[in-house]
Every structure is written in structure tokens, then in C-alpha cells.
């Protein structure tokens, strides 16, 4: 009875691609998203190349940290627009307080020291990667 189908479920595979600068997003008929994504049977999701840079839409400096980042505070979290898709991630490579709305950043993949889990990171565009 379901008219939806699960596709592109691998968040880890998406991070793998982002990590080697082959980031992508998924374009449907009426929306753009990133994995894991669920689409209607008739809603074909096309892989599109993630724009190389995005623009900070909103930001905060976390002072009381998430338990996975006990020793990392203060750290900056931003919501960043990459063309039609928006990503949430931790901003590195700059003073957390220097992150401003409108800052142009690149997406990267970071790893939490305590949990070993990977996640989306951002760094100011044009910076030399420290990875």
C-alpha cells in the first residue's frame, strides 16, 4: 500500500563522497535533500554535484557542549546553504566567534574524538585543508 520507497539511505556513503570532494545532493521534483532520503515511487531523485561553497545562514557558538564534544567547547555550529540544499555542521578553521552570517564556507567531514562518529564540518572557503 505504501506509495513511498526508500532510496539513497546510506548516510555513510554520502559522507564518504563528501570526504573526497565528491559531495552531492539529491534533486527531486519539488525539493532537494541529502541522504538518507525517502522519496515517492514516482519521485526520481537525481544526484547533483554539491556546490563547492555555501553561505552561512545562521550560526551559534556552543558553550555548554554536546557530550561527544566535551573538550571541544566553545565550538561553532552553522546552518549553511549550498544552493538548493542546506546542511548543518561544525565550523572549524577559524575562531568560533568569527563565524558570521554570510561567511562563505566549504563542506568537509570531521570525526568526533570521543565517539569516533563522522559528521559534516565547514571551513572558511579558500583555507588550505588541514586534513
Amino acid at each position: 500500500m505504501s506509495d513511498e520507497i526508500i532510496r539513497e539511505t546510506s548516510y555513510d556513503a554520502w559522507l564518504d563522497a563528501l570526504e573526497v570532494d565528491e559531495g552531492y545532493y539529491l534533486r527531486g521534483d519539488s525539493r532537494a535533500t541529502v541522504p538518507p532520503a525517502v522519496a515517492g515511487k514516482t519521485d526520481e531523485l537525481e544526484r547533483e554535484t554539491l556546490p563547492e561553497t555555501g553561505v552561512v545562514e545562521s550560526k551559534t557558538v556552543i558553550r555548554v557542549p554536546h557530550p561527544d564534544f566535551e573538550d571541544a567547547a566553545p565550538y561553532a555550529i552553522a546552518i549553511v546553504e549550498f544552493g538548493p540544499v542546506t546542511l548543518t555542521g561544525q565550523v572549524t578553521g577559524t575562531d568560533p566567534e568569527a563565524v558570521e552570517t554570510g561567511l562563505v564556507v566549504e563542506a568537509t567531514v570531521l570525526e568526533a574524538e570521543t565517539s569516533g562518529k563522522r559528521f559534516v564540518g565547514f571551513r572558511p572557503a579558500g583555507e588550505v585543508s588541514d586534513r
Partner: protein
Amino acid sequence: MAEILIAGVGATDFGDHTGRTGRELFAEARSSALEKSAVPRSDVDALYYGNYMGETAERQSHQAPLMSSGVGTTDLEATRVENACASGGYAVADGVRAITSGEADVVLVGGLERMTPLGTEETTAALSRAADELHEGRPGLTFPGAYALLADAYMERFGGSREDLAHIAVKNHANATTNPKAQFQSEIDVADVLEAPSVADPLGVLDACPITDGAAAAVLVSGEYATENGLEPAVAITGSGRGTETLSLQERGELTRTRAAESAAQAAYDRAEVTAADVDVAEVHDCFTIAEVLALEALGFYEPGAAITAARDGETTRDGTLPVNLSGGLKAKGHPVGATGVGQLVELTTLLEGTHPNADAVPDAKVGVTHNAGGTVATAAVHVLEVAK
């Protein structure tokens, strides 16, 4: 909507109940509500019970039968409802639906949370699980951090200041000074808020609600049941609405509106056949100061971008045109997550029936609204309460 009356309400004090179990706290609220209702316990058809973090705080899942067993009847359907901070509001909505559908005549709705066993670090972890784990939890976004992102986006777009937000905290603390059930019965001033340590910029400790233990309950009955049993409750639930939005902020497209609450409000107003302009008093979900701003706009009291100065301008204070959070709100009354939505119902019912310690601020109020939000308002439950005709 079928006539639904609030026959009795009860709640524990909100605060630190170290040494007491969740089941003790809920029993206190439940007994209080049942006694005030004068409804025989054997008449209760169902319990809808909100709880968010029982597994973490008390190593207790499957709490519905635990909380229903003391009602005194075994012929009772018991269900736990979990929608993060909106669990209580959804328990109320489920109770309303059960009576509206005709399947129940008497419903007990309630909620309970014990949070103080966890401390700040573990509470931060538990609350962060109400966000999208992959997109928000993994990068280290905390619950205060998520609302900080909303505050930043709001002020970037519409203006407003930390001082404007501080006035909301000051107002709600002032209201709580005369509410004996409130966790913080103490006044603060704008300087206190601005000078408090930041949790997640631009929100400081005093922009945030506290860690709270507490329970609340209410007995809802159909109009027909009330008539047949000679009950004359003073307050009715005339509208109930729910709304949903994407769990993660990044998928919403717009960070300055809470569309789940807008949908819930519209549905509740439509069912009650009222508009925002008819509302005399409101209890809204101010887990952070910015959350009250977003709530007032979602409820239609203000246009987008206009509510941030409402407290500062005295419009939502005790003496204002629309008193908001006369209980002290989540900010000062406290926020035992799963109980909050029912706690709002308890506060608003007593405000409208004139038994609340702050009822003298709204002596002529006829229509009130509760607004309960889950996470960053990915879920929302709104209820319209009216003085029964």
C-alpha cells in the same frame, strides 16, 4: 467538536524532587485531579500519559501501566505518548480525540518527568536526542544550540536584541513569584539575564528553562457525561490542534517561523470557532526566551518579526493587553518535559475558573490558549480553553 469539559486538574510543585520516584509524583497529581473532579475512579476509560526520558532518568520504559495502576480500576486503556517536550500536549490531544470519537466518556490525561537525577551533562545529552541525530546530533548541536540558531536567524532577519529577549525572562520570573508551584519564585532583572553565562550564543543561562521534576494531570469528560452525573465544570476544551514539521532545521527552508505550531493553532481555532483576536490569556512553550517570540507569532497574536518586543513593551506582561505565561512559563515555573503540556492545561484552567493565584490579572478572561512544542517545534499541540457556557 464535541463538548469536552475539564472536570478536575492537579499538579505537583515543579522543581527538585530528589528522593521521590516518578510514580509517586504522578500519583500526587493524578489523585489531586481525580479528587477535584468528583468523578468515580471506576468511570475512567483511558489514560494518555506523556513522558520523554524515563528510560534515561529512572531506567523505566513502559510507564503507562505503571501510572494507570493507581487509578483504581483495571478496566482502563493506558498509553504513553512521546513527542519530546510536546508529549504532554499530545496526551491532552489524544484524550480530546478519544472523547470526540465517542469511544470514551472520561479520560485521564497526564504527564511526568524526572530530570534532576541526570544533572546538566546527561540532561543535555537526553534533550539533544530530540533533534535529528544524523544531521544535528552528530555535529554537536545541543538543544539550546538549536534555539540559538533560531534566535540568530530571527534577529538577523527582523532585528531585535538580547535585551528584548531578556524582558521575556524577566516577565515570566515576575509572574512566577506568586505561583507556589513554580520552581523559581524569584525576580530577576534585565542585567541579570544579559550578564549570565552564555549557553549557546546568543542565549544565556537565564534565557533557558531549568531542569525540573514534576507531574500534572487532568480529568476530561464529555458534556453528556457531565450532564448525566451532575457535574458543572467551569472550563471546556473547545479546540485541539496538532502540527508537524521536519525534525531537522536544515530541511525547513525558513528558520524564523514555526509552521507546526501555525498548523496546530489554525486547527484548534477552527474547531473552537475563534480567532487569535478572541484570546484573552495564553500559556506558551518558552523553553528559551526566543521560543516565546516564535510561539506568539505562530499563534497569530503578532505578525512575523513583531513579537520580540512584546514583553519589553508591556503587552504580554501581567498588566498587558494579552498576559502570556502568568504561571511563570517553562522559564520560571519549570519544564518537566513530559508533564509540561498538561501543566499548561492545569494553569490555564485555574486561571479561567478564577482559582489560580494570578487569576486576578485576568478577571474577565473567557478564552485561553495553550501552546506546547516538541524539540525545535517539529511537533506542536495547541488547545483552546473557554469558560464553559
